[in-house]
């Protein structure tokens, strides 16, 4: 009984954080029922996660951009343009993959620093600065693909980033072995880090949740990781896209929660003047966040090009809006200072699930847009209402 009480207060206090997970859960279960289990099938989940990948990485960066009260509309065509450059470097210059990828990411950083210069140094509103960038890179994409049209990428290693799966090492119980191992390691790592946090807190004599609740939480999250792993292992296992997205999420989650830089980002978003008076270099933070955004746009371009196995003249169209939508569904606030990286990922998966589920159900594209729009509005309404209540 005591555990139930503790759990219910925990949920009440953190309804904002859990809201998205609950929404995602409801969406998934609903679609699964409506499609008679096709939605949660190994193959579909694998597809769904892969199709969300290039938006998810953008949403992560966009979350931080919105946290510091800016916006970046250029990310879509930056992704498209750099994806095309990657294709050109691979196919026309014949450079190997391990050189092309760092070059592309570096180019992304340079573009981001240019955005940062316009926004932080010259004080141009981010909306306008990045709108200009959007037009420029749309033109640049057309320019580099003008002679050739769509550039087909015939490089197995590169294309694997968008379509490939981690090697199998054999099958067990008809499941993908390495995927099971990776999932298992993930669970162990998760449990270890939770226990360690608890141990540290106890060392400082801080209050910790009761062991019962902790066990419940560990069991719950482990089950989910285990279940997803099990489902994916039933098809081709973890894809490289999924691994990359996970890596980006973990790194950004760590930076935003556990580092001085992360704190500075949230401080700048929360109150830029107070941040400045607290000795935080607001300009530097703006540069870094914009640079990280464009670097992730470069990564998004790589993932997208690899997924299509080609660079097209319209690649990147409306990516920025999908990313912004995912970030808002994920709980970022335009007032600044609020928003989580993990939320952005969930937001991206929610949006991808909607598209995927509705495709399976054969919902017309016109209704799909309207429904996605409604979900976006609903997420923001939820956010505004829960914020008013506040703590």
């Amino acid at each position, binding site marked *: 009984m005591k555990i139930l009480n503790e759990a219910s207060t925990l949920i009440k206090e953190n309804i904002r954080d859990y809201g998205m997970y609950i929404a995602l859960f409801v969406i998934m279960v609903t679609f699964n029922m409506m499609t008679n289990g096709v939605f949660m099938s190994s193959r579909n989940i694998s597809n769904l996660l892969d199709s969300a990948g290039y938006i998810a990485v953008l949403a992560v960066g966009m979350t931080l951009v919105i946290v510091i009260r800016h916006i970046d509309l250029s990310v879509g065509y930056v992704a498209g343009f750099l994806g095309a450059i990657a294709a050109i470097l691979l196919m026309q210059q014949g450079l190997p993959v391990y050189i092309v990828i760092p070059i592309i990411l570096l180019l992304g950083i340079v573009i981001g620093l240019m955005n940062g210069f316009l926004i932080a140094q010259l004080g141009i509103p981010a909306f306008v600065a990045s709108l200009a960038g959007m037009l420029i890179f749309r033109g640049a994409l057309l320019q580099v693909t003008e002679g050739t049209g769509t550039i087909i990428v015939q490089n197995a290693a590169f294309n694997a980033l968008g379509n490939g799966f981690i090697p199998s090492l054999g099958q067990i119980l008809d499941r993908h072995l390495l995927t099971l191992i990776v999932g298992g390691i993930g669970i162990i790592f998760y449990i270890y880090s939770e226990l360690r946090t608890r141990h*540290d*807190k106890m*060392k*400082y004599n*801080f209050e910790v949740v009761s062991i019962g609740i902790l066990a419940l939480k560990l069991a719950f999250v482990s089950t989910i990781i285990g279940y997803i792993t099990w489902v994916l292992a039933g098809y081709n296992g973890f894809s490289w896209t999924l691994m990359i997205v996970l890596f980006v999420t973990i790194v950004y989650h760590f930076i935003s*929660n*556990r*580092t*001085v*830089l*992360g*704190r*500075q980002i*949230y*401080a700048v978003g*929360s*109150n830029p*003047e*107070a*941040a*400045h*008076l*607290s*000795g*935080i*270099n607001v300009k530097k933070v703006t540069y870094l966040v914009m640079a990280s955004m464009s670097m992730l746009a470069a990564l998004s371009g790589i993932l997208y090009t690899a997924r299509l196995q080609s660079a097209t003249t319209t690649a990147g169209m409306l990516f920025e809006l999908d990313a912004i939508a995912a970030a808002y569904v994920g709980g970022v606030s335009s*007032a600044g*200072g*609020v928003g989580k990286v993990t939320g952005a990922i969930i937001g991206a998966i929610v949006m991808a699930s909607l598209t995927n589920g509705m495709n399976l159900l054969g919902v017309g594209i016109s209704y799909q847009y309207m429904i996605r729009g409604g979900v976006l509005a609903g997420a923001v309404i939820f956010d505004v209402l829960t914020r008013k209540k*506040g*703590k």
Partner: protein
Amino acid sequence: MAKTILEMHNITKTFPGVKALSNVNFKVEEGEIHFLVGENGAGKSTLMKVLSGVYPYGEYDGDIVYQGKVQQFNKINDSVDVGIAIIYQELALFPDLPVYENIYLGNEVKQNGVINWNQTIVKAKEMLKKVNLKVNPEVLIKDLGVGKQQLIEIAKALSKDVKLLILDEPTAALNEDDSENLLELIKELKKQGITCIMISHKLKEVVAIADKATVLRDGETICTLDAKKGEINERTIIKNMVGREMNNIYPERENKKIGDTILELHNWSAYDSQLGRHVVKDANLHLRKGEIIGIAGLMGAGRTELALSMFGNPKQYKLTGDLIVNQQKRNFKHTSDAIKEGMAYVTEDRKGNGLFLLQNITNNVSAAKLKGIANSGIINDNEEIKVAEHYKKSLHIKASSIEQMVGKLSGGNQQKVSLGKWLFAGPNILILDEPTRGIDVGAKFEIYSVMNELIDQGLSIIMISSELGEVLGMSDRVYVMAEGEIKGELSGEEADQEKIMELATQ
């Protein structure tokens, strides 16, 4: 016998926790120039806001009798309709619109519902003539100086057939010529039968043009002085402004140990290129170890600007003169440089630029010294919690937990969080800008006690304050500022309310 145009009876206005006005009586006769004087927070502006309908009928107690009738203003336009116009210190003009549009904004010259711009320009020219301003009505407001903008505000009021004109510190931002000009105009308007209520901190002006002056103190009417009876002179006004009883609410500080000078300013000036004037002019001051210096002055005297110009210059003023901290000349490029030299600045506006209101106490306390809770860039959450708990306990911050959002705390507790943030940064020189504004007496006392403890630990404090009692009760020495200049330095013994007010109203 002149006719009474306005009488305010027993006006009482309370804000949550504070009584801003208590039973104020205020009477103005037609065609006179009536000054309202008093310290910051005496209730002058509040009284005028009641009169002009900013605080609608029902939010205050008492009666407003205007032109023989009890008025119930529900919104600002109600007072405008009967001929009352108020001009605030921060002008309410639109910089990117031309003069004539500004004058007739909200009061457009219309024909069949469509604005007649030509007619507007013609009428605007008339209004400009009335205020003796020779400018083309088609120039943009932003291309005019503050003095001329002020006149345009008056022209705007005149265009609405104003009978009672209220000016809130009209000359605070003006230079001498412009001030002179404005005062002449007020006298001119008086001849035309316009009654004028002015709030001013410059007693010279009061003496020069006032027919009457009403002194407010702590939300109460003290007296109304009459020029005809020869009552309006600086000495009488100051005596009535400050004559408050000093309560012994300041904790005693034992064994004062004052050491070497650790901060000095030589001919320090700060030019604000946006305002187009010096906000600090030729300031000279010094601060010694273990000392509290008070910086007194009235609103707009340049005290906050002085603090910011020393503290890494976040407003990007053009600075001249020398700032010497810890025996070395400094040229701070950023607030972080000043923090590195051991300076800290607790802002006057804790909600606006002091705190991260949406974040919890923990994150606020650590914000000015994130390195102090981090190991090679990685935050140690637990160390941070320990720090926050420490300050919550030592500063008696009342909150449900350190996880509480700072925006939900009371003013006094927010101020303590702000203080905690800077104490964690470990400063030698602590600048406190209005450290007790808007907080209750109990919390004030606690903050004073903390200040004394810090002095015992060898810190030095620069305290900017508009509360004379606080300045006198806490400071070892007092500098008085007015119009961006340091008008005088008083030792703790010689400082008293009258002397400070004399310097502050120069």
